């Protein structure tokens, strides 16, 4: 007899099917299916382009999805432009290291205003189209559960992540306990050089609205009236 009789009941196969939709980096959870780039383009133009731009380049509602990756990156599995501070923004394809993530996310969350409305084959197709825009798969490619692991091997930033850090609070990965930044708590005559290196320029003073209206009307201080110049 369980300690809490009557609490919780076994999930049915149909229920598991309805909700267990996640797809892991090793493709566990990926449903069978396939979709060609050409179909993906149709889905894209009908369901995605309005927000993300015809070529996934739009910055209107979210950062661009496509751009910034090269044929060389596909070879190395490292996106070189991540080191280029002059390159504006970081696109999805520059960052994503597992193709399962793209598939899973589009499947669960896109289109943004109608998530979970795509059929499985449409998810394959539109993912193929995005990969094609990034030059990762050719125009005549059909993405499927059978070949997605091969695509993973061509993902531009597939070698671009590391778990060698102390910020995963488990033992399965990372190196818990070994902080990377080791500061000391100096108390007197410390090395600090109290020179201001960065502050908001006067023209940006009111960028977040009038701060006088963002502080309590009573207390040890008031909000500064940023509709007027400083001083």
């Amino acid at each position, binding site marked *: 007899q369980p300690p809490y009789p009557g*609490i*919780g009941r*076994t*999930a049915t196969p149909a229920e*598991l099917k309805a*909700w267990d*939709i996640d797809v*892991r*980096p090793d493709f*566990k959870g990926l449903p069978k299916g396939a979709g060609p780039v050409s179909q993906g383009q149709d889905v894209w133009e009908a369901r995605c382009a309005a927000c993300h731009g015809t070529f996934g380049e739009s910055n209107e*509602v979210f950062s661009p999805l496509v751009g910034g990756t090269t044929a060389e990156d596909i070879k190395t599995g490292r996106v070189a432009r991540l*080191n280029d501070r002059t390159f504006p923004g970081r696109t999805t394809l520059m960052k994503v290291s597992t193709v399962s*993530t793209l598939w899973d996310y589009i499947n*669960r969350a896109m289109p943004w205003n109608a*998530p*979970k409305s795509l059929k499985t084959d449409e998810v394959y197709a539109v993912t193929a189209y995005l990969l094609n825009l990034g030059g990762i798969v050719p125009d005549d490619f059909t993405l499927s559960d059978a070949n997605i692991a091969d695509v993973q091997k061509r993902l531009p*930033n597939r070698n*671009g*992540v*590391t*778990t*060698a*850090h*102390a*910020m*995963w*609070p*488990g033992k*399965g990965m990372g190196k818990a306990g070994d902080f990377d*930044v080791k*500061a000391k*708590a100096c*108390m007197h005559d*410390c090395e*600090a*050089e*109290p*020179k*201001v*290196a960065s*502050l*908001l320029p006067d023209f940006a003073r009111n*960028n*977040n*609205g009038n*701060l*006088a209206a*963002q*502080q*309590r*009307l*009573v207390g*040890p*201080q*008031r909000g500064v*009236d940023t509709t*007027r*110049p*400083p*001083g």
Partner: protein
Amino acid sequence: GGAAGAAVAQTAADGDPNILNLPEHSKGLGQPVAAEGYGKPSKFETNVQRRPSPGLTQTAQASVSFAPLQSLFGIVTPSGLHFERHHQGWWDIDPSKHRLMVNGSDAALLKRPLVFTMDELMRLPSVSRFHFIECGANTGMEWGNVAVPTCQYTHGMLSCSEFTGVPLRVLFDLCGVDYKRARYVLAEGADGSSMTRTVPMELVESGEVFVAYGQNGEMLRPEQGYPLRLVVPGVQGVSWVKYLRRLEVGDQPYGTKDETIHYIDLMPGGLHRQYTSTQECKSVVTTPSGGQVLLDKGYYQISGLAWSGRGKVRRVDLTTDGGRNWRTARLQDPVMSKCLTRFTLDWQWDGKPAIIQSRATDETGYVQPGTRQLRAVRGTRSIYHNNAIQSWLVEESGEVRNVQLA
């Protein structure tokens, strides 16, 4: 600039008219009880609001509103001012129809997948605990330069509540989870984004992680995941999945969108750190802070918040000379693990420019780094996990400005 309408006591020769002329409320009959069955703040407090930062996001449903830390006291965040972070908007879900499913990545990872109603979850053994929640992107706008004026915008993706719910371990035990193999947990929300994140089983086994329905004595607010959210103390807010509908146990991490495309930290050299989850020790002075104007010279109580995702705050040091000399602040009881700690220190402001900073140390001995120390290791493009020491410049005019030092 200058103070907006500071209430100076207009003391005539014989005294303050606010004393000499009795106010209406001393001479009349006020409002009845239960005028509001659920009460609201004073009308004089309308400036104290959560706010988005203009231009930060392109939509209002995949966005952030920041808690007004500069106006808060103690450690509890009023639920009406709790910061918001949504990826596909918020919902007010009917709790009688909400379900929580627990399953395994493969069938062998647990004995039986289970479904729970809210009625059932709320019957199970519960815990109530005070914890902070901080978005991994808090202070993210400030990695390279000063970007925003007040601590609402620099640090306001931070809140602290008393959460109530069922330790996840209780549910997993009911399912007969094979803890040997199942070292990872996937949490999934019921909103449009069906937000997913991987959580280490270690935090479940320690008893720390719980599925919460209560927040500050009442049910969670819709913006915070009503009727159910995951509480993962010490870990960034994105893992505290809202509208929690499903938990899956597995033998591998899940590489979800918000751990593969976002919430990855770009290091010098172009590698991203993945699965960075812990919120390291951090602090911020909230009084005085950016965007404020001190009304006068003289005594002030410097006050602020410190926290660590690794346990208790052990000590907070304060400087008013930009880091040359430090004094140890008073910590306000109770000091709880993975919870905000309020600190205070006396200060006589002589009217000269001053640079105020706070530096927290947690019980593991980790010391909150300065901006330069943090950047020396992580560069300026990480976006996430900026826990650098914050600097506020008090100018002669009394105006306080957000600055970064050389």
